């Protein structure tokens, strides 16, 4: 009898996730996601979400974080919010939106698994994936040996005029990198001043940076992990090195005030943070999940490991000094022609 109960319990335990993973037809309607995550990922997310909630239609708008914020602000001004859930690569943008009372407070049951460094304590936004900066290099013009394993290696003279980075004005992740490194005594502003003197050039987006390296225009770049790894998988002639000093950006999700489908937005919010939902999906695109407990590809760090090792970033301070930071950066890099 006892054994039977155990067997029954085991069977039900096995069946339970099967049921919960099945389709849930009780929700219906449309939900609009503004996302700076690559479009491939968003399409996969859309398919998985719609498979779980067959009566919900997920629409998306995919653009850089800056563009998404511009769209949002104009929507707030004209009081015609279209966006239900925003997923940006720039926590400081979320901090500004929160300060402007533009975000809805939501404590997702899945948010508990997210490290406090990667989310808002009051639940206005929650990190939903990790973006890790590193070194992207061209395999045609730079050997694996020549490419460094840490940021200081980029100052070597063989990278004069052979190094690019994404313009931090338009890229939240590079802005975070500049902040983290300038606040670290090992690098400071000196590091960026030297980069500027070496003739380091700027690109408009991390995608453009990767392409310039892939085309062999430059040997090395400040790269973004999943962009580079995905291109490598396609056969692009580029390579990737993780750096010793980790710069990690939690890419947060949040619901804007006035979202026309708030209930479904929360559903999507949960789905993205769910280790068996969105988070598992991310690893297929070489993106580091924000919660532990997801099976990771070889070489990928867990969220907890990243949280403990990464250079510290005070996101609230970054949001405050953002303009000053960009001005100083521009003074080294943008001598307009």
């Amino acid at each position, binding site marked *: 009898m006892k054994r039977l109960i155990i067997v029954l319990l085991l069977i039900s335990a096995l069946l339970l996730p099967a049921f919960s993973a099945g389709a849930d037809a009780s929700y219906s309607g449309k939900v*609009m996601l*503004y996302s700076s995550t*690559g*479009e*491939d990922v968003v*399409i996969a997310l859309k*398919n998985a979400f719609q498979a779980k909630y067959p009566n919900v239609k997920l*629409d*998306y*708008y*995919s*653009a*850089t974080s*800056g*563009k998404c*914020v*511009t*769209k*949002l*602000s*104009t*929507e707030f*001004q*004209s*009081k*015609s919010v*279209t966006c239900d859930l925003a997923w940006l690569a720039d926590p400081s*943008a979320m901090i500004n939106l929160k300060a402007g009372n533009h975000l809805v407070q939501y404590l997702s049951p899945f948010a508990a698994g997210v490290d406090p460094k990667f989310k808002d304590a009051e639940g206005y936004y929650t990190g939903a994936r990790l973006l890790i900066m590193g070194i992207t290099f*061209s395999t*045609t013009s730079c050997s694996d040996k020549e490419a460094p394993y840490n940021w200081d290696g980029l100052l070597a003279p063989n990278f004069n005029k052979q190094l690019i980075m994404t313009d931090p*004005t*338009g890229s939240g992740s590079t802005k975070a990198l500049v902040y983290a490194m300038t606040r670290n005594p090992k690098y400071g502003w000196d590091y960026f001043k030297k980069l500027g003197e070496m003739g380091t*050039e*700027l*690109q*408009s*987006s*991390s*995608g*453009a*940076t*990767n*392409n*310039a390296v*892939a*085309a*062999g*225009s*430059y040997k090395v770049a400040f790269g973004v992990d999943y*962009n580079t790894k995905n*291109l490598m998988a*396609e*056969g*692009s*002639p*580029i390579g990737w090195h993780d750096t010793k000093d980790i710069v990690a950006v939690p890419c947060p999700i949040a619901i804007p005030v006035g979202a026309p489908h708030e209930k479904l937005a929360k559903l999507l919010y949960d789905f993205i943070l769910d280790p068996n939902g969105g988070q598992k999906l991310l690893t297929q695109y070489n993106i580091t999940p924000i919660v532990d407990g997801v099976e990771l590809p070889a070489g990928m760090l867990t969220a907890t490991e990243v949280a403990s090792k990464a250079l510290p970033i005070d996101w609230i301070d970054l949001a405050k000094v953002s303009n000053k930071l960009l001005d100083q950066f521009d003074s080294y890099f*943008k*001598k*307009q*022609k």
Partner: protein
Amino acid sequence: MFSRAINRDLAHLEGKGGFSLDRLMIILCYVALITVVILPVFMILYYAFWDGTKIDIAMFKQVIFQKSNIRSMWNTLVIGVFSTALATAVGVFFAWLLGRSDIPMKGLMKFLFSIPFMIPPFLAAMSWDMMFSGRGGYVNKALMSLFNLTKAPFNINSVAGIIVIEVVYYFPFVYMQVVSALERMDPTLEESARIAGASQLYVIRRITLPLTIPAISSGMLLVLITSLSNYGIPAMLGYSQSIFTLPTMIVELMNRAGGSFEGIRQSAALSIVLVFIVSIALLVQRRLLTHGRYDIIKGKSMRPMLIKLRGAKYPLLAFSLLFLSLIVVAPIVMIILVSFVKAYGLPFLAKNLTLANFRRIFVGNIMVRDSVKNSLFLAFSAASFCLLLGTMLAYVIYKVKPKGGTALEMMAVLPYSLPGTVMAIGCILAWSGAFFGITLYNTIWIILVAYIARYLSYVLKSSSAALQQVHGSLEEAARSCGASHMQTLKDVTLPLIKPAMISGFFLVFLPCMRELTTSILLYGPKSRTLGVAIYQLRINGQIAPAAALSVVTITLIIICNNIVKAITRDKKRG
């Protein structure tokens, strides 16, 4: 009482008194133009000088005197002046070669000249970037390995590079104008000079050239205005080197400010500077045109005397074909090649080729699918609206001739001289709830309104040219036979100008299909256009899929273009 009845009847017959069709059309024209053109323009002025509570010139001053903005004004001017001068030289040369000399293979060359019109300029720029951008361009790479160079031989990402691409893209404007003037010119003038003993060069200098000056200067103006207000080429080529022109700076200011009130005001202020520069160009051209107007160009078709090139014939032919294939064929081939490559940067070897890029843009990618749908919808609706409104305007201005006719015409052609970026900013300001709480921002309708404003003058021009050829006596004849005003319009006037209306429709349809300048500022989450989709793919670094979508776009445009040709040919035959 009897006479009053007759009077009313007469008045009715003449279309006077009561609420006549003419008056209705006049009112409709005013309402439409004020909504579509005047409101956005007014809002730009309002925002640039009004800070919400009082008149504020400080912000305007600060924007104009900001160093980076002055730099972009300078770049705009340099690029505008040089590309206009060079495009004119190239255009006139080819017009003379094809219109006046006995060079062979004219048909092929004329066909090649028509291709740049079909390819959106930003696509051409993208393709040139793939070939000649620094060390990464495919052609540069090939040259570097061939000649063992350490530095890239060409750098397209420079002011000079932008000028070269604009010349390549815009010289057909001058060519088209000049070649048709040459074809319509009375050849006896040249012949008599030759008989009187003038040398060939002297004839060109003293007779042919002065006679074509009006055509040349109108072609030049077209190039200058297009160059000053172009967004695509400097955006594609200049960004990585921080080279900004006014249109790209306006968009940059919009983006940098994250949609804040201050950012919109700054872009509005910079828009005014751009409009100012364009108006100066227009004034200069008007001055040039009033000097030396010649009415000797005849409408009769006569066979002009062809100049024998003799020994220079084949060298010139080789040069022209080489030049045309470099500037027309090479970019297209480049885009097609890249659209099949697995990852950008790989050499074009069989093992690196794939169809995955096409699959990627079509399967599951709702943004690309939406953009094809949106562009077709926008092009069709904008062309239809422009056709209706433009023809009605032409009729009102040239046939009804109301008191404020000139005002109507000026309002209608105003957006033509306004850069697309400026028009877009105006539309955002006007249609984000400023009037009657109407918010079109983020919807496809705001793009439609902007397109209508921008391209209305195209239909107005083609329809009014046709209407001016319909003599008033035709309508009068119909009216005196007892036809109503409406009937006359339907059975006499409209059928006569139908071919012009059809070509007017496609004059709007085709540029709408490939529009980028306005839509880049106006697109919303669900209203991306083809141009925006390609631009975004490229900015996000997906160059190969961007190339694949470009191939699709070019194919669509070529198909549409051939439909137009088929229709207009049928009309001519019938």
